[in-house]
């Protein structure tokens, strides 16, 4: 759920960076958003550890506050930021993504801008995961054990949160703040239902994610509805199908 919190909480960071740069495609935007994402996870930690507010309540408090702040900032920005409207923030606009074109040599069109941002983010995440695989594995499964080995769990935690923030930030311009959470949570949760090993879980999760995107895209364009909505809907339905099937097979095993 921290992903949910971060995806909503990046709003004020994006707005502030936008005010400074005046440009929706600037790298500053990405930086501002990632920074607020990490700050949000620090606030959540603080609220649950120091203020002793229940974990999920502190998540809820933090992201609603930051989201409200972002909305107020947008409202007080007046009319000079037509680009930055709330609809885009919540649903994203994958359909209009071609508006920000990357054009080389004057007229050679080589794809939408957001595609390259995503590509870079993907490689960053892939590299960090490959390099730090052991560390992430340790803190994901047994943080106390990791601590006892003398590993600085704080650094790994914030590195992970930084990656989550990066993913949400690059994702949310395309798919929107709420649905990016679906992409973060649903495929791994589906994978967790059928595999036990971390490596396999990563691979299966990626497969489910990509599968949902492809099927969702065609279904959505068939019915002429929102693409991202369709993708997450497919992912969600897929989750429930797998859940039913795994329950069913468990029952069969019990009978046999």
């Amino acid at each position, binding site marked *: *759920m921290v*992903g*949910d919190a971060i995806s*909503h909480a990046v709003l004020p960071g994006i707005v502030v960076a936008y005010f400074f740069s005046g440009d929706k495609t600037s790298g500053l935007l990405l930086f501002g958003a990632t920074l607020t994402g990490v700050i949000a996870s620090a606030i959540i930690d603080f*609220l649950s550890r*120091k*203020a*002793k*507010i*229940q974990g*999920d*309540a*502190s*998540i*809820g*408090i933090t*992201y*609603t*506050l930051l*989201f*409200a*702040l972002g*909305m*107020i900032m947008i*409202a*007080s920005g*007046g009319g000079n930021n037509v680009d930055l409207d*709330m*609809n885009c923030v*919540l*649903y994203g606009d994958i359909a209009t993504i071609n508006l920000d074109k990357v054009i080389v040599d004057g007229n050679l069109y080589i794809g939408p801008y957001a595609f390259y941002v995503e590509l870079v983010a993907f490689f960053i995440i892939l590299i960090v995961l490959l390099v730090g695989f052991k560390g992430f594995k340790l803190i994901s499964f047994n943080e106390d054990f990791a601590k006892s080995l003398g590993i600085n769990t704080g650094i790994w935690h914030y590195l992970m949160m930084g990656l989550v923030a990066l993913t949400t930030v690059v994702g949310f311009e395309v798919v*929107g703040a*709420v*649905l990016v*959470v*679906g992409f*973060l*949570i*649903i495929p791994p*949760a589906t994978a*967790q*239902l059928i595999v036990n090993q971390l490596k396999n879980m990563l691979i299966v999760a990626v497969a489910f994610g990509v599968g949902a995107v492809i099927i969702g895209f065609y279904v*959505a364009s068939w*019915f*002429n*509805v*929102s693409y*991202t*909505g*369709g993708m*997450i*809907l497919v*992912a*969600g*339905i897929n*989750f*429930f199908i797998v*859940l039913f099937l*795994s*329950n069913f097979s468990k029952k069969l095993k019990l009978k046999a």
Partner: protein
Amino acid sequence: METFLDFISFKDPNVFYVVIGIFCICSSSALIGTFAYLRKRALIGDAIAHALLPGICLGFLVAGEKNIIYLFAGAFLTGWLSTFLVDFIVNRSKVKQDAAIGIVLSSFFALGIVLLTYIQNSGTTEQGGLNSFLFGQAAAINKSEVSLFAGILVIVVLIIIVFYRQFLIVSFNPDFAKSIGLKVKTIEFLLTSLTVLAIASGIQALGVVLMSALIITPAAAARFWTNNLLKMLLIAVGFSVLSGWVGTYISYVNFGMPTGPWVVLVLSIITLLSFVFSVNHGILARFLKARKNRRKILHENILKALYQLHEREGNTNELNRRFSPRELLSIRLFDTRNLQNGIQRLKKQSLLKQEGGLYFLTSQGAKESKRIVRLHRLWEQYLLKRTQIDAYHVHSGAEAIEHILSPEIEKELIRELGISGIPEEDF
């Protein structure tokens, strides 16, 4: 000031509707949020809020127009379904609750977006304004909606009054509730239905995201101030209504400012202030208490060291020798700055007096000094004689307990050990 008077006198009937509407929404969500918070299910409100969107769209598709009853019924249906699915996932798989909430929330929201774009593309002219469910439009509350919100508030309050005891037991200890024969499932069903009702009432005014704040934040703030459920409910409502009112006022004064975000901002500020200044659980109170304890321990250690200083010279009858702070360091390794500050404070409490650069104990200070040493050594004797603890280790135990032994326990120890005065033995 004039706008303020205009605002509170409801010169504009629309302001009246908005204020009353926000009042009802804030109250019912704070009441129901308190139970959600106590049941450690704060984020379930988040899932419900997002899940209302497809219900609203379905209601619209069935009715073919923006009929508030249909929209509301649809919202209630999907909102309720979402909590059922979260529970189902948690019970039937190893997926944890927060992930389950995330899955349900985004799936339902995706369905909502799909239906919304479907409605928008179908070209119905009636669909305008369905968007407002996403971000909320408090300024658009009208008369019929206010009566709906008020009705919901009345229902919530009545049900809470009738089922107060049951809700209390289920919130704090569902296992106990089961053991005394309460129908926990039914009560939880009732609570869930009320939660959906409360969120559904606020969704149009405040929007999907901010509605979660109205459920979670007032309860979290109220929790800092009391341990009593009834008081917690009242405080949560108070905070929530106050911020609803301030938020509405701010958006009334500044044209174009959205109401919902300001309500949430004010609410969060109240929570932050509660966290810092709360009398019992606040960070300030905890800090002061910790400092008080630290100082007490320091003072008692200084007084104890003074006794030992006298003892070293074989004179414990009258503890009136002049000493310099430096001498105490030979008895015990104080942090020099702490020692200086401690001595100054002891002087203020007139346990010490100053003469030039030297200090000496007052008669009251001497008494206090003897008391601490006696407690320390009584405990050492007790550990030695009544437990199996080795003589090497009795000192460290006594070093901690001497600061918290009450006069009653002191008497007990004296009776148990038959020791009067200060034991000579020191470890």
